[in-house]
């Protein structure tokens, strides 16, 4: 050992805070607990692209149907406002949203202003160390009640898992230029408990089109 053990290691100062408040003053902070009719979800992914690219793709709200489950259309209605439509079978829910903050390459925050869904969210883009991509963290809040329950019957996932899956779809689309899918898959007869298993294994869950909106061939 050439250096004495008491010498301070030469490292960068540690970050004091992290995206969507997962760390405050150098200490881990768990996501907010569900209460008072509010449901919270925080999730993150490490994506092989730079923060600015990810920020731009996320900001392109009108392309959200390509990676967000059951979103059929997003229309910009003003510089900071948009109108969202979610459809499943003959059921439709719609709401308006407003962008509250938009810092290029760093973060986007939004909330719903009117309609069938009450939600607020933030997505933060932070470079991972040593060129390992970008850490994307989302924090979202839904007001529970009729809508959250409806979402569940609607999309087949609870809204929390939908946030997790949507980030997964976003990541796959950015990294691999497509969202993985297997259905329709060749198979033999599914048998008596087939439909039960189909739903348990997620065969009925919606998968957004990704880059695949037209024909694959």
């Amino acid at each position, binding site marked *: 050992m050439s250096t004495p053990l008491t010498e301070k290691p030469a490292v960068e100062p540690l970050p004091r805070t992290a995206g969507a408040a997962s760390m405050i003053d150098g200490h881990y902070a768990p996501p907010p607990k569900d209460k008072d009719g509010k449901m919270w979800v925080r999730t993150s992914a490490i994506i*092989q692209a730079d923060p600015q690219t990810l920020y731009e793709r996320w900001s392109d709200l009108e392309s959200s149907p390509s990676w967000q489950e059951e979103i059929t259309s997003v229309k910009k209605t003003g510089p900071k406002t948009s109108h969202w439509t979610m459809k499943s079978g003959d059921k439709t829910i719609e709401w308006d949203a407003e962008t509250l903050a938009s810092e290029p390459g760093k973060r986007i925050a939004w909330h719903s202003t009117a309609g069938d869904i009450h939600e607020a969210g933030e997505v933060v883009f932070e470079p991972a160390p040593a060129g390992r991509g970008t850490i994307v963290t989302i924090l979202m809040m839904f007001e529970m009640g009729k809508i959250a329950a409806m979402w569940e019957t609607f999309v087949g996932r609870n809204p929390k898992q939908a946030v997790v899956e949507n980030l997964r779809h976003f990541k796959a689309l950015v990294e691999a230029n*497509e969202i993985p899918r297997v259905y329709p*898959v060749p*198979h033999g007869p599914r048998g008596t408990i087939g439909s039960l298993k189909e739903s348990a*294994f*997620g065969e009925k869950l919606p998968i957004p089109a990704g880059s695949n909106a037209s024909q694959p061939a």
Partner: protein
Amino acid sequence: MKAVCWMGTSKVETLTVDDPQLLNAQDAIIKITRTAICGSDLHLYDGMIPTMEAGDVLGHEFMGIVEEVGKDVTKIKRGDRVVIPFTIACGNCLFCKKKIWAACDNSNPNAQLMEKAYGYSGSGLFGYSHMMGGYAGGQAQYARVPYANVGPLKIESDLSDEKVLFLSDIFPTGYMAAENAQITEGDTVAVWGCGPVGQFAIASAFMLGAAKVIAIDRFPERLELARSLGAITVDYSEEDVSVLEALKDLTGGIGPDACIDAVGLEAHSSDLQGVYDTVKTALLLETDRPIVLRQAIMAVRKGGTLSIPGVYGGLLDKVPFGAAFGKGITMKMGQTNMHNYMTPLLERIEKGQIDPSYIISHRITLDQAPDMYKIWRDKKEKVTKIVIDPWA
């Protein structure tokens, strides 16, 4: 098309199912010319792997001719001859970049199922349960192959299918097992299981510099194949043979430098330990029978390495972790990072250093597959490896 379908535990049928179709722009459809049954398929046959569904098409070792490609496929074209790796990888995520292809972040559409079971999801696999993606397998006439710019290995020489087919899984798996054993020149390596994976692990251990390989199994034909590669064999089922004692006797009392468990979760044992595990798994108190794992941990020398290509699925009972800690051993394991090995191992085949077809014992049709599953599971008819011609 015709395909081999899993219809429940110990129930496999060859049925007519829909042809696969292109679903994404980087997909290819392969017309399969040769495919095989793997020891891993026996775990499905025996109902040891959760999230199988009746009707699922089996098989993950296959090769063939490119029939059709999606619009973003540039690396292969219709008419190319290709071997398909059984792990599906996107090529662009953090794990693919680190060359841990079997941990690809993007290829498993059912990642949430595996996250619930394992914390994080591995890559998708062909024909290997819904938790691993629900992809249709290759014991069929056609298969859909995603990320066709990343996985398929083009075969440009006129080597026969049988010589290159095992690049789809077991040759790379045996090779990675030997690599994971961290062999240095002169090492003694013990290999449990002389099935196909064990065979290629033995051959690869010699390639990587092992001086001595000790192969353990109970089937004479498999032990004989191992001896043909230069291994010393131990039949664990012979009266008065204790594997631990044998390994001490053959290593000057210190134990093998590395141990390879090429058996996995359905290890066989006739003694009380085996009865204990069989009863516990039957009662759902334990999911795996880690008989070989326990032995290998006990056998490996101090500071040695344990490499585990044999598949484990769930919760293991009575694993002597204290011995592992006490000896300071290293353990390396996992699904094979296929994409690292296919090209270099193809070169070895092309140079004539190895002819992997030596392990084939049975050549069959798709219609014969259901019977062969049973015959192999019951270790009848001296099966070592079964290859299927889906058009015969």
